[in-house]
């Protein structure tokens, strides 16, 4: 873990070299609100993806400032923070979904399997086959349920025979907990399902290409509590096979589904830690303010 002094903040005595390498501490033992360097352990013993010095700009706007974070194998890591804090921007860097946004620039190292995913040699199609994504609003294709799930494996050539495709579709739907509800309606349009079912269909579609990491950008924000509960159960089950990075606005959800939590604030990664620790004993004043509902 590095302690860099953010150039934007003038700490007294900085120019004199008097500031120690220890963060400024408030009277209640928390790291001061003005201190924007990351608190907590950003590393993971068995990382799947390693991010270092990640900066993102949208045009002139510095949307993400120097983020270091490991995403571990078979863990669920939750990104929380107030709106516009950069948490969605961060996970969209992990499968380069930001590429399609005009004026978006990403710098830093995002390493997966020893390769920088922003490297020129990295194939975006291949990356997205390994890092799947589920979006905020359920977005099934306006095609049949079967076609929705079969699309990914088909374009990646994962199955040669028709029966293989069918098998992938069935297992994916089963893993997504949707099979029992839709097995008789596979030829019906995916857009005809309820919101929660659509989102589970999107999860099935994402895992049909057998990714290693699944990114979820507020997957439950458009769903009612019952559908949300189902998705949360599902996330817990999926952890066995996949690494999951989830952005959520619901702190309860983060507490329920994740093992580690990262708190973002205005483009800075403020604090990373075990979920229990973040919610019971945050080390940073901003984190505490957020989880106690003082703003957000």
């Amino acid at each position, binding site marked *: 873990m590095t302690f860099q002094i953010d150039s934007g903040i003038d700490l007294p005595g900085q120019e004199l070299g008097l500031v120690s390498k220890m963060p400024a501490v408030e009277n209640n033992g928390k790291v001061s609100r003005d201190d924007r360097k990351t608190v907590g352990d950003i590393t993971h013993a068995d990382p799947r993806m390693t991010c270092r010095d990640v900066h993102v700009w949208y045009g002139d706007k510095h949307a993400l400032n120097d983020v270091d974070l490991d995403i571990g194998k078979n863990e669920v890591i939750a990104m929380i923070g107030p709106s516009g804090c950069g948490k969605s921007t961060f996970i969209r860097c992990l499968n380069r*979904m930001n590429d*399609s946004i005009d004026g978006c620039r990403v710098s830093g190292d995002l390493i997966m399997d020893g390769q920088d995913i922003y490297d020129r040699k990295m194939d975006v*199609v291949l990356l997205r086959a390994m890092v*799947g994504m589920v979006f905020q*609003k359920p977005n099934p*294709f306006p095609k049949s349920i079967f076609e929705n799930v079969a*699309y990914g494996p088909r374009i990646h050539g994962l199955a040669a025979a028709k029966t293989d495709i069918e098998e992938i579709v069935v297992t994916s739907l089963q893993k997504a907990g949707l099979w029992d509800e839709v097995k008789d309606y596979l030829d019906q349009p995916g857009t005809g399902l309820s919101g929660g079912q659509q989102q589970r269909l999107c999860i099935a579609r994402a895992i049909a*290409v057998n990714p290693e990491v699944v990114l979820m950008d507020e997957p439950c924000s458009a769903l009612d509590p019952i559908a949300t509960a189902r998705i949360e159960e599902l996330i817990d089950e999926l952890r066995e096979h996949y690494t999951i990075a989830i952005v959520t606005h619901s702190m309860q959800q983060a507490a329920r589904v994740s093992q580690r939590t990262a708190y973002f604030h205005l483009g800075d990664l403020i604090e990373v830690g075990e979920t229990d620790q973040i919610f019971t004993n945050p080390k940073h004043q901003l984190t505490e303010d957020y989880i106690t509902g003082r703003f957000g």
Partner: protein
Amino acid sequence: MDNSPKHTTDLVRQGLAKRYRQEARFRRMGMTAIILGLAFVSMLFISIIGNGYSAFWQTYAQLEVHLDASKIDPEGTRDSDVIADADYGGIIKQSLRDMFPDVTGRRDKRTLYRLVSNGASYDLKDFVVANPDRIGTTIQLWVPADDDIDMLMKGHFDRDKPESERRIKDNQIAWVDTFVEQNRIESRFNKTFFTAGDSRDPELAGIWGAATGSFFTLIITLLLAFPLGVATAVYLEEFAPQNKWTDVIEVNINNLAAVPSIVFGLLGLAVFINFIGMPRSAPLVGGMVLTLMTLPTIIIASRAALKSVPPSIREAALGVGASKMQMVFHHVLPLAMPGMLTGTIIGMAQALGESAPLLMIGMVAFIVDIPTGVLDPSTVLPVQIYLWADSPERAFVERTSAAIMVLLAFLIAMNALAVLLRKKFERRW
């Protein structure tokens, strides 16, 4: 200020009447506009149909024709070439003279011959060639009446006017009345109008030549404009970077949509005909010119259709690892297709109704033959309408209106197709 609820509702109530009056006034204005619009459209339709419906009927006269073997086939060979070469005009004239033996003067005789169409001799020839065994007998043959007689029978000439102010003379009226007395005149469905090409004689003129020309021209336009327009729209919307060049291109496409169509005709004349050396009056060149004209329409409509595809579908496709090309062709394009087709059909309907640019490239020529390919000289429906509207014969007035009706029918059919396609392929997400 007193903000008690009672006070507020009083204030709102005071203003309510004014609001309702405004709304009612606006509605009345809207209704008036719609009624006016409908009135103009119905006036247009009523005048065109009122003028044109009679063109779908044509007066036919029955002649008693003696097929004199010495005139048709003097050597009795029954060879169809010999039979086809006979002087059938003379035979028709002979039968008219036989019918009215008291007509003697040269001028009177010439007037008498003009009772039936010039096409009568061709009809007779066709009959004899098909039935050579009837040579030597006397037959009853229905032939189209001359356009003036047709107009007289349809009541477009006033019999009560003094003879000097009429196109039809007294003796002609007397002969026609004789025909009517002998039940030798009748009104039949005007098949010629739908099967023939243009002619100087209204009773022989038809729109099939122009319709075929329009068909070939539109096929060329569709084949060129649709792929070009869709490809341009897809590239500009999905692949092109946003920079100064694409801005310039976009502005120019929008400008092209507003360029007067005759300018495209001049361009076609200068480039396609004079520079490249393509044939004049050909549907190929017409189609290329109309492609230039319809491209902006198709591009703009297609881009709007692409823009209306929700970004979530693009993200979904990219999220499962589709390449940009796969995203566009598997998901975005199918969803945008109904809008693109609608734009294309509207562009095609525009092209179908366009005459000005085609005048420039020579599709305004008088062409009798039905075109058989895209290189044959031909004309198109709106130009045919223009040509007929320019003709002095009274019978062309109703044919002009009838041709307009045919053109309108095609346009309505195309627009209905656009609506149907949109309904059929429209998908909800």
